[in-house]
């Protein structure tokens, strides 16, 4: 496996690992690891290091909504232009082009349901190429980014076993 992949795998496991620790884990020397991480940051392979927060348990609750958007693609740009007009809004978390009954899946977050309603009414539906929208408020997140978010009984492992 190329060094780059090994380093990324280590960082995906735990972004707080020091270059020295990663060096030990991937069998390379520390300088090489530092340079490789720096290069990947510059090239946009590594986008950042954010804490993975459980939205179900944090104090400041947010409202999230999944919006199915049907759009009229444009000659020469396809869906890219209209996607851009949507994803540039800071409240938009994700925009995906999908196959099936609609075109864009937009995930947005706001403080209140009113915020989201306003976004749909005042910003999204009025875009000239948007044909229709269907909003689904998110009720509960069970799992996100590979991590289960809901609380379940902790696995019991005896602390010392042969």
């Amino acid at each position, binding site marked *: 496996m190329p060094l780059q992949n090994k380093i990324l*795998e280590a960082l995906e496991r735990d972004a707080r690992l020091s270059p020295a620790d990663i*060096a030990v884990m991937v*069998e*390379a020397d*520390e300088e090489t690891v530092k340079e490789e991480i720096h290069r990947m940051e510059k090239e946009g392979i590594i986008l950042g290091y954010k804490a993975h927060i459980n939205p179900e348990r944090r104090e400041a609750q947010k409202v999230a909504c999944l919006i199915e958007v049907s759009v009229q693609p444009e000659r020469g740009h396809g869906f890219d232009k209209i996607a851009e007009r949507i994803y540039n809004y800071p409240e938009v978390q994700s925009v995906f082009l999908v196959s099936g009954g609609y075109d864009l899946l937009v995930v947005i977050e706001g403080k209140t349901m009113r915020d989201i309603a306003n976004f749909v009414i005042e910003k999204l539906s009025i875009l000239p190429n948007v044909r229709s929208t269907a909003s689904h408020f998110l009720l509960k997140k069970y799992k996100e980014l590979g991590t289960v978010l809901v609380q379940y009984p902790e696995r019991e492992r*005896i*602390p*010392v076993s*042969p």
Partner: protein
Amino acid sequence: MKPAIIEPIFQSQSRINQDVADLPPSGIRRFFDLAANTPGVISLGVGEPDFATPWHISEAGIHALEMGQTSYTSNSGMPRLREEVSAYFERIHHCRYDPAGELLITIGGSEGLDLSFRALLNPGEEAIIVDPSFVSYAPLAILAGGKAIRIPTTAENGFVPRREHLEKALSPRTKILVVNYPNNPTGATLTMENVEEIADFVLRSDLILVSDEIYLPLSYETKGISFTSIPELREQLVLLHGFSKAWAMTGWRLGIAAGPRDIIAAMTKIHQYSIMCASSLAQIAAIEALKNGADEVERMRREYDARRRFIASHFNRLGLDCFIPKGAFYVFPSIRRTGLSSEEFALRLLEDERVAVVPGTAFGECGEGHIRCSYATSLEEIREAINHIEHFLTKNHPEIVSESLPLPYREEKAEH
């Protein structure tokens, strides 16, 4: 009428079988009690995976339960499972065990071990056991009426027995040699030369080799070597394996014994009277594990692989010398430079820092001067434990701790 209250007589051991009464309690038990009563303990003392059983395996077990597959199975284990086990050995080790007669499904690897001793040892016959080793080997040999002859291994020899020690342990009553590589507690593995040497000793001395290979799928850097790679050994080899470690199925209690027909038949006879059969649900789950579990085993193996380099390097940095193990999920660092005994070190670490490790002496006298640390624990917890151990050492033995990580790979830098 009120029944008379009869005081239980605990002093009298006369009604307890003498062998059982004489057995010392497991050294691990004491640490278990201490650790269990330490709130907020960070444990490197656990001898089982930190992963839950892969979901597709558990799901197969749940489905079996829903379908009411809750009956006894064949004594030897479900034919479908034995076929899958046979196919697994053929795929991984290129050796053939006949599902009808050369395989037995047991309650964990431990039952297979117990059965091999009981099926092979006559009263007074001896089993050679490597020291340090898994806590059950010697007691089970004794309970089977045999004697356990321990031979020393040391860090200098990579915890692999030397020929001279093997020869010295031989007597006219020697029947069995028990080996376990990748090893619990040391993490030691065998080279092809080691395997050939041990096989040669077993063949020349006309012994039976009981090889506990439960950790073999958790081999790093090189593919683990099974004693099945020596075809001449076949009639003198009892192979023990199981689902607990590599498939993270400890609680399901399911193991495998493979060997020559007469020995497996004898083991099956005992198993049939004392156990009847392993759990049907566990067996169905195990079929799924063997059919479709390879990716999940590999995912967990890679996690252990990253952690083992991390933990071993940090122990070396802290002055607790240890080699980087190539199998299982244990490191066995030396604590000699602290001047403490294994027990003292483990006790103080638990009291001062709430970190649980197992003193090497729980696995035999040769474990003195070492502690067993399991890296079947999340990287976060390992890191926290290392921080506490560093705090403990800097406070008490600052001269042995170093700031920077050693780079054991500088010379043999990998060209991946």
